[in-house]
């Protein structure tokens, strides 16, 4: 499958943090065209394994690729006179919730909208401010009694938005954060299937990143990879924002560096991009990256970790926008990087020999 088609199907699937099951089925289909084994762990992480071909003289090594498949969304907190009160799961942009179409996952899927009071009746002060969460509600059109039959506290509400191809190479939709990374990993596996590689690849679509990096924390512990790369989205360029704070959409993978990223991993990614003439950008991250890389790095006794960001505009809205060619470039960069991994690099990183205490 081409990256664009995969991204479309992933983006239009519904799976907020903790409820990723339907996305996991698509991930499985996407990854398993090019991998041999598939595991779903306790937390629900989707793990595809592509084994490397190694010389028996060398130890078995592995790399974990992590992109999260959960999306931000809403959860019903209360039924009130035929309307639904809700809270957010992950940090939804409250500025854009009013007027959204949603799907309420009750006894059956119900289309709904997010409403609030009309501007005509608001005070001048209220008109100026962001509509607070407790002034918003979901309306599915049912009466109070009908609603109580269909929906209960704790039911999931997802945002509804079709994938749109903009002009040029750009596409727009919901949940590109971080299903676009899943598309990058699928592309990497596809390219890697035409290359030789000696290290095993754990392709992981993680869960619950938006609620505390939980899937990465537990899957990294469970898989015990030698090294890891997280793929997530980075803030793209747009008017009114300094170039220093953004990366260019369509400008290629943004390679993170800073305390969350192992310097030798960063250097090797740069070297790989240069050698294969893949456009890339550098992305300084001075502290917590807020990505799966942050959890992977400190799993068990520590894992040399890198972070690749997909340039993306309008993060945490339903119109996240990115360039398809950036996904293809990241897939290619990952495949080249993995295919280059050898025991010399393991020694440079100071990786222990499996089964031996360092």
């Amino acid at each position, binding site marked *: 499958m081409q990256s664009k088609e995969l991204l479309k199907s992933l983006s239009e699937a519904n799976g907020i943090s903790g409820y990723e099951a339907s996305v996991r089925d698509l991930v499985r289909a996407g990854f398993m065209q090019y991998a041999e084994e598939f595991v779903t762990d306790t937390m629900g992480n989707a793990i595809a394994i592509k084994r490397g071909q190694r010389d028996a003289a060398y130890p078995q090594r592995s790399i974990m690729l992590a992109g999260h498949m959960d999306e931000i969304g809403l959860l019903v907190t209360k039924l009130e006179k035929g309307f639904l009160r809700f809270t957010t799961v992950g940090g939804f942009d409250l500025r854009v919730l009013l007027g959204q179409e949603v799907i309420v996952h009750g006894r059956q899927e119900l289309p709904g909208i997010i409403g609030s009071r009309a501007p005509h009746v608001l005070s001048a002060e209220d008109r100026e401010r962001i509509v607070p969460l407790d002034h918003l509600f979901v309306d599915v059109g049912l009466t109070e009694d009908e609603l109580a039959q269909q929906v209960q*506290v704790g039911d999931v509400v997802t945002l509804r938005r079709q994938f749109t191809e903009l002009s040029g190479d750009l596409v727009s939709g919901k949940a590109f954060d971080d299903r676009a990374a899943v598309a990058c990993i699928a592309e990497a596996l596809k390219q890697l299937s035409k290359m030789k590689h000696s290290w095993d690849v754990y392709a992981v679509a993680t869960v619950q990143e938006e609620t505390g990096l939980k899937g990465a924390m537990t899957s990294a512990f469970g898989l015990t990879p030698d090294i890891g790369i997280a793929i997530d989205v980075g803030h793209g360029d747009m008017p009114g924002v300094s170039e220093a704070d953004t990366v260019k959409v369509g400008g290629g993978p943004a390679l993170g560096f800073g305390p969350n990223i192992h310097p030798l991993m960063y250097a090797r990614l740069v070297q790989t991009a240069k050698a294969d003439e893949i456009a890339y950008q550098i992305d300084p991250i001075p502290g917590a990256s807020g990505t799966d890389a942050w959890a992977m790095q400190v799993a068990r006794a520590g894992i040399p970790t890198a972070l690749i960001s997909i340039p993306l505009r309008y993060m945490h809205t339903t119109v996240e926008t990115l360039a398809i060619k950036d996904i293809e470039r990241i897939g290619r960069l990952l495949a080249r990087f993995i295919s280059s991994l050898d025991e010399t690099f393991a020694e440079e990183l100071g990786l222990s020999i499996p089964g031996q205490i360092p």
Partner: protein
Amino acid sequence: MKKLIQQLTEEFGPSGYEAPVRDLIKSLIVRHVDEVRVDAMGNLIARKKAVPQNGIASRRIMLAAHMDEIGVMISYIDDKAFLRFTPIGGVFPSTLLGSRVVFTDGSVGVIGREKPDHPDELPSISKMFIDVGAKDREHLTRKVGDPATFTRPFVDIGERLVAKAFDDRIGCAILIQSILNNTVSPHEVYYVFTVQEEVGLRGAVTSAYGVEPDVAIAVDITLTGDTPEAQPMAVALGAGPAIKVKDRGMLAHPAVKDWLVDTAKRLGIPYQLEVLEMGTTDAMAIQTSRAGVAAGVISIATRYAHTPSEMIDFADVQGAVSLIDGLLGAGLPF
């Protein structure tokens, strides 16, 4: 069971200093479990062996309730023997005025306040002090670092109970009652009475790592939306044990949540679903232990949480005990 609840809530045990609570619980359960141990952090871990049943897969289940309560610690003593203090856990300054605290040796102090700049000024902890009635420093036996908790008697007002430290001694009481009920379980059950929940779920982190459960349920309190002008929340006293969907720190594992709901339905136990917008429980830490644990929470609706006068409904407590007995007695659906 009310006697048990009274004993537990009136015991002393701020975070890090849970020994009196631990000793009490140990004495109550030691003859009813197969093994009891205390780990390095001070968690009390009791194990009941599985009784194999044909056709039922045996799992390792961890039930967790925290022994610690919020409190204060002496941070500085002035020349006139007044004690400045710092909070242990989430203490609301506005509930401190007029409160009494008790130290490990049972001695009591009262909380006083500097003259406010304005009569309606909210008190801040830095402008309060503890007065233990010492004439001067010579007669003071307290020292910097002494922990204290609030003191307030347990009150049984019929269907509802009032006490300090229902958070989370009520969870401890529910686990103990479940042990005493001696339900035959095909599962290996670890009853874990954790330490230091109020200061960052720290006992749960280490005990879950040590126990390595397949499935875990924390039993703790939750807030309610059933008092005048409360924050909107669909949880009320007396509507049954609350089954958590989400709180500030975690999403309950959907399969565990469904298991709790289906068991409550099967046994005809009233229940309510809970979405809590602040706070979290030991289940958050247990869920991400090692390679991940399927975790959920049974909550007891509690008004006035983190004050010395927390209020709960006794029927909710009994419902929670029945629910746990029902969970342990049958096979898991996942």
